[in-house]
């Protein structure tokens, strides 16, 4: 591996040397950062075994398109940042001849490797630390397909920067198809709302994530007072091609919490107004650019490639490099020269068939891409699907709107319903039916999808065996045969049929997003629903906006938001705390971070106390076994360990009260496990000086007039309170 590294480095060095003498005549070399990791889970389970950028898109790995475009756009030096499956990416770069090339006219490609990065933000921080970027650069991820000319955008960017050094980034955006329904559904991405100054093209507002709970786009009044005119766009696609100034990298380093390019960085710049930095947009008017974010955009972009919107990035032009020549026939059919095709087989429009593939009698291939070395039996119907290399499909199978990876074996009569994803080497038994939208892999689904989606990445660097343990209820041993639905209903006769591999269950969010992101066409009902949603206007808006009525809506809204805010805050504190538990962060930093969070959410000190206490208790609960004794013991330990931290927040009686109330609330609602232990933990809190007797007595006093149900815990700890009172009296007497 080290050998590879040094070689690729050598390539970069040579390019730099080559640039040196041309430096006087030419502007500084244009650099590009290509992120060869999307830091998302959208292509799982496939990405467990192969990085997303190497997945074939109409026979070519995605990264090939991106690199080809970068080179054609005049980029001199590209840094490929690899993280998950970095070996595979590097190997590919070697094999395909990108790495190690140097000299005038061609682009130098250098692989940058880091295994700690879990987000685009981390990646850019690594790049910054290594000091590779010297001037303006193109930031792109390895799954972006484009044929646009960068010249205009680049010139605009540089001109703007000359006038205003605060213009640090130019985002490329593109009009999406002009229909209400396809504005955002075409690529299956979240809806984007942008506000752009029509004169300067400055980006003023950016919201991505379809958050349906918030029906309104809210634009700050300050933005409007500075910009009398602005355009609100819902009809733009973000191409995820950015031209950045070197300041962007240092911004990522300064703001170490930036992870996501858009959600954190762009929003951060726009909302927090850091140093007055500005982001501009460049609207792409001719040319193609799209990012493959999910299966639907995979489907859409594949079709665009087949229909030659991406020319010259089309199969018959750039696939020459791999020596598998495919030729374009009528109706957008691409066929390799050595395809074995039965006379009775029918290939419909807009299909691609790779070399050394054989297709049997009476097959129908419609709107599909078939890879290399596939064997397709008789009477097979493949519609709107993507079949990768070396796939065996036996007689009578039906595959529609699905993705079938390398080495998959479909036995006779198998039916794959729309929206399925079959990962590498999956076998589907005779006459089995793979239900719609299922994802099948030989690898088990990681049992615990920890933390946020955007922080996650395909983490198996060393390969297949490394994947997290699987706690499946369905599996009965290694590589279980999971009975398909067909099997259960008893229609199968052979008994051996079914699916070899694990059927992944999709998470809660997955079900909601399934229709949006899968290859399967959006169902009619859904379209109607969307159409309806667009047209209908709920009456509540009418009322709330009515100036003659008091704005009831608003007040309730803000209350909800408030609650929401606190729970969000608590969650973040908990996460921060857990990180501290795992080591790493020391106490002072932890306090700093929590204070930072408090400021970010603009909450009171007392809220902090409650949240920290909640986190401590939660940690104790997680560590403990089920019995009360051990829980008490771990709680005592945790409190002992973190008493300093807690004391930091309990400066006044109010904050101590907050902790008590929080404790009570926890016992009643979230973590009932503590409720029998309340009276035992309370003295401990007192002993560790987290809570003073004043606070306890005041709490008891306040609760005296409360409902019976509220008094449960006061009663439970009556003895202790009594004792406190007596102790106080004794003190008085002594004096």
């Amino acid at each position, binding site marked *: 591996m080290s050998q590879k590294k040094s070689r690729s480095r050598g390539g970069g060095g040579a390019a730099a040397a080559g640039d040196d003498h041309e430096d006087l005549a030419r502007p500084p070399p244009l650099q590009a950062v290509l992120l060869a990791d999307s830091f998302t889970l959208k292509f799982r389970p496939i990405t467990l075994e192969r990085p997303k950028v190497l997945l074939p898109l109409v026979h070519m790995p995605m990264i090939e398109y991106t690199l080809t475009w970068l080179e054609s756009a005049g980029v001199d030096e590209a840094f490929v940042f690899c993280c998950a499956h970095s070996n595979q990416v590097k190997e590919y770069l070697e094999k395909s001849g990108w790495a190690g090339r140097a000299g005038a006219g061609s682009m130098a490609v250098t692989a940058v490797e880091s295994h700690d990065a879990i987000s685009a933000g981390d990646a850019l921080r690594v790049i910054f630390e290594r000091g590779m970027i010297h001037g303006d650069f193109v930031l792109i991820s390895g799954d972006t397909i484009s044929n646009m000319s960068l010249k205009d955008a680049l010139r605009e960017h540089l001109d703007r920067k000359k006038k205003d050094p605060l213009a640090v980034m130019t985002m490329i955006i593109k009009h999406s198809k002009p229909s209400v329904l396809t504005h955002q559904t075409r690529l299956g991405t979240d*809806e984007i709302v942008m506000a752009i100054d029509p004169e300067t093209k400055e980006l003023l507002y950016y919201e991505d994530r379809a958050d349906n709970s918030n*029906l*309104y786009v809210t*634009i700050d009044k300050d933005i409007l007072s500075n910009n*009398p005119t602005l355009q609100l766009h*819902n009809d733009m696609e973000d191409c995820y091609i950015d031209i950045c100034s070197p300041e962007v990298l240092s911004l990522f380093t300064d703001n170490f919490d930036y992870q996501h390019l858009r959600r954190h960085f762009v929003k951060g710049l726009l909302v927090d107004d850091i140093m007055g930095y500005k982001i501009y947009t460049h609207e792409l008017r001719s040319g193609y650019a799209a990012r493959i974010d999910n299966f639907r955009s995979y489907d859409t972009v594949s079709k665009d490639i087949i229909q030659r919107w991406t020319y010259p990035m089309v199969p018959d032009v750039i696939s020459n490099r791999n020596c598998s020549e495919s030729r374009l026939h009528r109706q957008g059919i691409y066929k390799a020269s050595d395809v074995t095709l039965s006379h009775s087989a029918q290939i419909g429009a807009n299909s691609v068939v790779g070399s050394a593939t054989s297709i049997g009698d009476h097959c129908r291939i419609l709107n599909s891409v078939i890879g290399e070395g596939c064997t397709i039996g008789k009477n097979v119907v493949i519609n709107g699907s993507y079949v990768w290399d070396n796939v065996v499909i036996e007689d009578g199978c039906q595959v529609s709107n699905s993705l079938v990876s390398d080495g998959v074996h479909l036995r006779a009569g198998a039916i794959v319903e729309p929206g399925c994803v079959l990962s590498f080497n999956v076998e589907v038994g005779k006459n089995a039916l793979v239900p719609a939208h299922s994802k099948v892999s030989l690898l088990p689904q990681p049992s615990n999808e920890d933390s946020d989606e955007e922080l996650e990445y395909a983490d198996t660097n060393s390969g297949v065996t490394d994947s997290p343990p699987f706690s499946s209820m369905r599996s009965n041993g290694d590589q279980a045969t999971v009975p398909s639905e067909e099997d259960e209903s008893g229609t199968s006769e052979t008994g051996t049929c079914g699916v070899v591999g694990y059927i992944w269950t999709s998470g809660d969010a997955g079900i909601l997003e399934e229709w949006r992101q899968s290859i399967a066409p959006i169902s009619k009902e859904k379209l109607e629903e969307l159409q309806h949603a667009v*047209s*209908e*206007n709920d009456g509540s808006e009418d009322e709330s906006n009515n*100036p003659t009525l008091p704005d009831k809506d608003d007040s309730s809204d803000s209350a909800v938001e408030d609650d929401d805010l606190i729970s969000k805050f608590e969650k973040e504190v908990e996460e921060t705390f857990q990180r501290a538990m795992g080591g790493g962060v020391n106490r002072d930093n932890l306090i700093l971070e929590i204070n930072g969070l408090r400021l970010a959410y603009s909450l009171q000190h007392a809220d902090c106390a409650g949240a920290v206490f909640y986190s401590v208790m939660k940690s104790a609960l997680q560590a403990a076994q089920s019995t009360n004794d051990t829980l008490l013991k771990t709680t005592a330990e945790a409190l002992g360990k973190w008493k300093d931290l807690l004391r930091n927040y309990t400066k006044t009686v109010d904050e101590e009260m907050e902790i008590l109330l929080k404790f009570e609330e926890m016992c009643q609602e979230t973590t009932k496990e503590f409720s029998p232990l309340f009276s035992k933990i309370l003295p401990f809190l007192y002993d560790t000086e987290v809570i003073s007797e004043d606070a306890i007595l005041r709490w008891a006093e306040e609760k005296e007039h409360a409902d019976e149900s509220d008094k449960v815990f006061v009663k439970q700890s009556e003895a202790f309170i009594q004792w406190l009172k007596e102790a106080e009296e004794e003190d008085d007497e002594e004096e």
Partner: protein
Amino acid sequence: MDFQVVLLAGGTSETLSPLVSRDVPKALLPVANRPLLSYPLDLLEASDLKDLIVVVEGQEAARLVGAWVSSAYLDRLRVEVVAVPEDLGSAGALRAISKRLTANDILVISGDLVTDVLPGAVAATHRRNGAVVTALLCSVPVSGPSDTPSSSGKDKAKKPNRLNIVGLDKTKQFLLHIVSGTEVEKDVRVHKRKIQAVGQMEIRSDLMDAHLYAFKRTILQDVLEQKEAYRSIRLEVLPYLVRSQLRSAPSVGNGRPVDETGNSAVLSSGNLQCLSQHRVIAPSAFKQDVLSRSCGGHRCCAYIAPKSKYCHRLNSIQSYSDINRDVIGEASHLSGYSFSAHNNIIHPSCVLGSKTTIGPHCILAEGSQLGDKCSVKRSVIGRHCRIGSNVKIVNSVVMNHVVIEDGCHIQGSVVCNNVQLQERAVLKDCQIGAGYIVTTGSEHKAESLARK
């Protein structure tokens, strides 16, 4: 019957006291020596919109306005002056005369609008788009004296009510969102579905609603009837219509292509009507049927006045000074007078003393006399004023029959009818109500003086 015009002339507005009074209702307030109402009336006449109802608040004011209109516009316009109770608000006034409305479309214009945007152009846009309502939007005027740019910014901030936030579609024809009143100062909230439906919306805060609307009569009457609490057209009726357009229309976005094809179909249909003045093709009711059948909803449109046009509402003391200044200054074509080579108008019957100078952008009406060594700059002086010697008048309005004695200084002020300024009185940024007597040597700054 083509368009019916409703001119809301107001009554004796409190905000303009002491300039307006029982004797001089707002409509008759002289602007460059012409009653305010004559500006919109001339404008309507120029657009060939001659059928109009002038709505005046209060019986007495209505009588005065009626008397003036019948004498000044006899044989030129068919005017009906209607009195309504005071404090109804614009929507209330409209509701009160709702029964008199018969034409398909109603043009509602505020009597205090001084503009050179032809209402006919708004009416034509309204017809062309088959809109339910079309509002005239114009650039927010810069107020304050033009020679002190620093104060203009301050004044603008003082008048937040005049600012609107509007959302327009891509073609800038359709009004998708409007915020007015105190809401303007808050963050802008736009319903996501609205943006989804249109794809792209332009939010502008540099436009104001000029209070000139074309309404479809049936809808207007329905709204006035159903929403009894609505008092203001600008603050309530228009936002309501804009808000509800999305609800009834399945999709504005889909409607657009239909609009284009519908347009061409209508052009060839021969069912055309021309607004003679502008030669703008205005397809009549037929077009509306096509549209309402195709998309079921109503549409709100906007006519955006070109930047070069003058558009100002006289609804405050400041705007009164501004408009006077503009009408004799940069927007002199509005005044209807022809200016001399010195850019001023001095009635031949005026008598000027020796060494008295009248600067550019001034008007001296008939019968006024000035003593020696006077200086008048950028000011309006009414009829039969008697002005002594050594008097300076800058940036001011002096109405009729005013007596100004020797050595007075008047700057940035409004002096109403029959006021007497005794010797060496100094006024700066003052308003002097009718018949008031300013005593010898007194100095006033930023005051409003009126007879008890």
